[in-house]
């Protein structure tokens, strides 16, 4: 599998990363390098081996259904670039 500069451009756009047209071919080469490495990994026979989800042997911790947080709008909004009263505000995004 390999990607062309147009695909790299699309991925960058989806990830909201600005990339100059001129950089695209070089980036495509880099991404293809990674994909090539993964392709080599694919050749390993893993038949019957369960996917490794974590290197620590433990299960997902679960929490009780009790309210332990919240009530701190001022703290949350303290670093917000823009606010009105207790709302975050952003340039209008409307459908």
């Amino acid at each position, binding site marked *: 599998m390999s990607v062309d500069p147009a695909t790299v451009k699309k991925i960058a756009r989806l990830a909201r990363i600005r990339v100059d047209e001129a950089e695209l071919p070089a980036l495509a080469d880099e991404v293809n390098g990674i994909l090539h490495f993964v392709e080599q990994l694919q050749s390993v026979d893993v038949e019957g081996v369960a996917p490794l*989800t974590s290197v620590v042997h433990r299960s997902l911790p679960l929490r009780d*259904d009790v309210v332990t947080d*919240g009530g701190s709008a001022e703290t949350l909004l303290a670093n917000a670039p823009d606010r*009105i009263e207790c709302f975050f*505000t952003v340039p209008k995004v409307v459908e």
Partner: protein
Amino acid sequence: MSNPNLIQGATGEWEMVIGLEVHAQVTSNAKLFSGAATTFGAEPNSQVSTVDAGFPGMLPVINRYCVEQAVRTGLGLKAKINLTSVFDRKNYFYADLPNGYQISQYKDPIVGEGRLILDMKDGSTREIGITRLHLEQDAGKSMHDQHPNLTFVDLNRAGVALMEIVSEPDMRSAEEAALYLTKLRTVLRYLGTCDGNMEEGSMRADVNVSVRRPGAEFGTRCEIKNVNSIRFVRAAIEYEARRQIDILEDGGKIDQETRLFDSGKGVTRSMRSKEDAHDYRYFPDPDLLPLVLDAEWVAEIEKGLPELPDEKKARLVADYGIKPYDASVLVAEREPADFFEAVAKGRDPKLAASWIMGDYFAMLNRLGKSVTDSPVSAKALGELIDLIADDTISGRIAKEVFEAMVETGKAPGAIVEEKGLRQVTDTGAIEAAIDEVLARNADKVAEYRSGKDKLFGFFVGQVMKATQGKANPAAVNEILKGKLSP
């Protein structure tokens, strides 16, 4: 047999194919991955933890009760519970999604295939397949109408647990889609896993619609996002199917796209900004290990399930002999079904059903009340039915007593005594009243005897009037017949 669901186009018949993705908010105190509260209508940003606001370094910890609620819902939908499920990141950018991704489940959802039974108007049933149910986070709320060039963001809803319940494309009309939503809401309410309140956004539907020639392959579908009432779902489907048929009949083709229902205009329109919407670049969330459930815990949850609407309906039909459709109306919510049983126990169940579905429901509608805050209790309605059954009052007088019960809250027995409504069953008194009526209307008696038997009703009416409606109607009929026969 002609299929009533088919739509007549200019070039022949078309069939709708509909599938629904319902987002149901899990009833819980705290959010899916944080300890912030979920109460509706709180002050903006007052129920937000640093996890929900996407602060750097914050880690999600899953709420056990939300998992239990999802399992309970799966069991209620007779679905397969997956003992291992995985949380993934669904990546997209929007102002009310602080992390830039929603934690959801993609390849391995917590619940697999199940089913939902629809109760059709004619008393028959229809089964709709459930593809899956998965747990995910809700996003925050954006408000676009507060300022000329700013959007306001409130993150109180961000991180609240949702169940996305996906149906198979098994529905063939807007009516069936409406029945599906209604029934799903009923099941969720019985289970106590979602309050089903569409006005508060606790239940929202994405509607997938396509059209095809009857029996042909599925056509290309469009997805109508975030429809928030059953009425709008119906309207959106009707509009969208017609739009697609018009395009196809003009020789065009349908673009698979995301559309929005404009409830003001009653139309759907394309959401151009969602062109890349399906490119979510899912990957397993590295902050969360797979969710592994203990089979014993699942069995325990199953043991605790309440009697569900389908079982309750079957039991009401079997035990009380009422009609399947009546039973499905009664079980649409838990309270009316319980109310019916309280009234029907030890009484004539058909009489109980007809009173509850007739005068009693009409009264609730009129007063805008529900069974829980009704002015007439099950005990009081039962007593009224007892008074009819033992001939203390007639069915007609019972309606008058019922109105007085609604107004005064008094017991039916007390009202009957107070107003002197006790039915006259003393045949002597009834005979006397009849004799008097016949004597006063000798001309009509002659007409009746000469063959104008429609006048019988007139005599009954006169006798009932003379006795202020208190004469036992059966006795009146019988005695009157005897006296009028030549």
